[in-house]
């Protein structure tokens, strides 16, 4: 059954491998996936360790429901101390790797040390081997996966790999699987690279026994119907995630020219329908694919139609690539979008961070803070498509002074560039913001400021706040499973009620990350998608684990608190601009200049923002400095951490 999947401890320095069961009391406290990874990180990483040193520990996992009959349990999670922000590093991706790892007998890998030479792990039916990977070093992410399949003689092997960016220790390098499934954000690829770990390959045929198969199938049918009939998922199944960027740009909620504007004008050529046309022309009418066990099918397939990479196959682009290669640098070419997406996929680099950091450098260049001397003559201006793609390459291969500096991430780069360059860097906890602009949406601003892995939309964003839902609908969602009687507002430009929404979403997203389910199956983009009341049924039918909705909430709250404890141990301070729950001054000082009539002229009110943070901390059981109160730790059963249960 799912609960008998093991945890493996792998020391790359010594070659020692230990395989252990996951005790049921640990499952009940942390479930699996990201939540259990957070516990393992806190217990197996020493305070202040070098993120790119052998003492950092990297966790790889699937959720407790991975590879069961439940829908969309494809998610693979990777966690370590981040080389980008120096705090929590965490990345989550779809595809097929985690289910294969589960069939090979494992739910969690804990990898430490550093191999003397490049290696990869080969995991198959309960066994783990450390194999030579010198011949794989230098290969792209796709080349690596196919080379491993050929070497081991099995086309069904699924691998988690790094590309050249991870090998070159670019601090925002991805871990990748498949063509485009990206464990992006926070530089987990660089951590693998620092360990000389090129890949983790898995293949398994070990059955997962379902606790109540008839009920699981019956309920899953109903569950899938609920999910696929939602408008948001029907749109995703037709246009993929680009519709999110398109809709957000429509009212003025995206970043453009770093942070100077909040809307990209006249960008019809890179809107979702335009992308869909290219996909249909190059791949035919049925060009949408899905991850393991998912019926939404939000992943488009395409070939680049023109330019130096014409004919190259890739998948996506996701909304994050539209932000990275269109909105932020203010480029409007579909060729640039599809090419940029392809390069970061093949080289294993975070599209969000790449686009953000280059757009920041473009603003610095236009301000004269960077000059031709630093760019080696490259005219790094906004809307210069060639310069944008050239910088992607220079960063990945650390070419030239600026390429090498930007590969270090924004905070270190700002220290090397000097002057007042940091003032223009749109980041939280060392991680560049998403391509969205939150000056008109206080709830979303609170989310990016307080997200545990640095600025992020997938940790606590109440995206449905943008839908102007009636208060009654909001109350129905946000008063469950924990009663909430405070204010709620349908207005997304308001401040009231938002801290509770962010707190609720933080627990909601943690719960699905522990289960191993995709966020498009929960209250992220759709208000009518499953949440705390629905998952206990899925969990029980598939694994036999009995949880009430409230107990599941408690697990999520506990796991979020472990992440907080890790960040505090590594130096998080409430108002620290580089390691705190704080936004760049431009959020408070520079009004938005584009968008819908009620969006222009907006800033975040500094005092109201502070009050939102205070209220958010209260819900989490933190004091005014953001440190957990002793009674909170006791309530969550975390008063003895690190407890070394596993």
């Amino acid at each position, binding site marked *: 059954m799912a609960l008998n999947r093991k945890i493996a401890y792998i020391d790359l320095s010594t070659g020692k491998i230990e395989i252990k069961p996951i005790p049921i009391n640990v499952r009940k406290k942390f479930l699996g996936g990201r939540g259990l990874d957070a516990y393992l990180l806190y217990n197996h990483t020493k305070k202040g360790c070098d993120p790119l040193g052998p003492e950092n520990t990297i966790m790889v996992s699937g959720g407790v429901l991975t590879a069961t009959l439940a829908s969309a349990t494809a998610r693979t999670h990777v966690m370590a101390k981040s080389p980008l922000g120096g705090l929590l590093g965490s990345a989550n991706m779809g595809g097929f790797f985690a289910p294969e790892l589960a069939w090979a007998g494992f739910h969690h890998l804990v990898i430490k040390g550093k191999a003397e030479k490049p290696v990869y792990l080969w995991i198959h039916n309960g066994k783990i081997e450390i194999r030579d990977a010198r011949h794989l070093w230098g290969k792209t992410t796709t080349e690596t996966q196919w080379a491993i399949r050929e070497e081991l003689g099995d086309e069904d092997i699924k691998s988690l790999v790094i590309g050249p960016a991870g090998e070159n220790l670019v601090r925002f390098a991805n871990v990748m699987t498949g063509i485009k499934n990206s464990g992006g954000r926070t530089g987990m690829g660089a951590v693998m690279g620092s360990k000389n770990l090129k890949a983790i390959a898995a293949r398994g045929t070990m059955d997962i026994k379902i606790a109540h198969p008839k009920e699981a199938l019956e309920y899953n049918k109903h569950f899938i119907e609920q999910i696929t009939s939602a408008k948001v998922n029907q749109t995703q199944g037709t246009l993929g995630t680009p519709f999110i960027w*398109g809709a957000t740009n429509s009212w003025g909620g995206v970043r453009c020219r770093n942070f100077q504007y909040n809307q990209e004008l*006249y960008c019809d050529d890179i809107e*979702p329908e335009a992308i869909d046309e290219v996909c249909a022309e190059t791949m035919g009418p049925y060009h949408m694919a899905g991850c393991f066990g998912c019926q939404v099918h939000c992943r488009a397939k395409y070939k680049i139609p023109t330019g130096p990479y014409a004919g190259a196959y890739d998948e996506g682009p996701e909304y994050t690539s539209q932000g990275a290669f269109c909105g932020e640098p203010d480029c409007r070419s579909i060729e640039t979008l599809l090419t940029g997406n392809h390069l970061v996929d093949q080289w294993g680099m975070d599209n969000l961070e790449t686009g953000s950091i280059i757009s920041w450098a473009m603003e610095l260049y236009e301000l004269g803070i960077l000059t031709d001397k630093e760019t080696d003559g490259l005219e790094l201006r906004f809307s210069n498509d060639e310069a944008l793609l050239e910088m992607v390459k220079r960063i990945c291969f650390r070419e030239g002074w600026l390429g090498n500096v930007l590969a270090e991430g924004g905070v270190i780069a700002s220290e090397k560039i000097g002057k007042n360059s940091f003032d223009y860097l749109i980041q939280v906890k060392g991680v560049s913001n998403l391509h969205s602009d939150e000056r008109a949406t206080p709830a979303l601003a609170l989310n990016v400021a307080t997200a545990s892995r640095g600025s992020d939309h997938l940790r606590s964003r109440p995206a449905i706040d943008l839908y102007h839902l009636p208060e009654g609908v909001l109350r129905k969602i946000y008063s469950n499973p924990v009663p909430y009687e405070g204010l709620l507002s349908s207005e997304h430009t308001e401040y009231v009620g938002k801290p509770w929404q962010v707190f609720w979403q933080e627990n909601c997203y943690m719960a699905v990350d522990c289960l191993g389910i995709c966020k498009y199956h929960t209250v992220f983009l759709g208000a009518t998608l499953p*949440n705390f009341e*629905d998952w206990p049924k899925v969990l*029980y039918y598939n694994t036999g684990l*009995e949880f009430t909705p409230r107990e599941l909430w408690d697990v999520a709250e506990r796991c979020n608190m472990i992440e907080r404890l890790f960040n505090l141990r590594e130096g998080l301070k409430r108002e620290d601009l580089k390691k705190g729950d704080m936004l760049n001054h431009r959020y408070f000082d520079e009004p938005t200049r*584009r968008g819908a009539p*009620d969006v222009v002229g907006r800033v975040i009110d500094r005092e109201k923002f502070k009050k939102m943070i205070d209220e958010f901390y209260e819900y989490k059981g933190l004091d005014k400095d953001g440190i957990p109160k002793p009674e909170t730790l006791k309530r969550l059963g975390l008063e003895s951490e690190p407890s070394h249960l596993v």
Partner: protein
Amino acid sequence: MGNEKEGLSTAEVLRKTRTYGQVRCHNPSCMGRLQPERGANKVKCPVCGSEFRVAWVKDGFPRIRGPVWEVNQRLAEEALAKKMKEEKKDGPK
């Protein structure tokens, strides 16, 4: 208990609130429900005057593709100018 037959969950209850054939105006202070004519490629909000280009996910399922740039940009510029004027008079909002 997860295994007990219970009433409908919040998600299941809210399913009946889904609306089809309509889109919401993208202006936050408006957010009126707009119902484009079947197959139309534009829709205008009768309340705030914003105009949008419409695409069809499938028959009967419209979505806003983006603004009619020149119209909504003009509305934005007017709104910004008004806000800046008010701010000068009353201080920052």
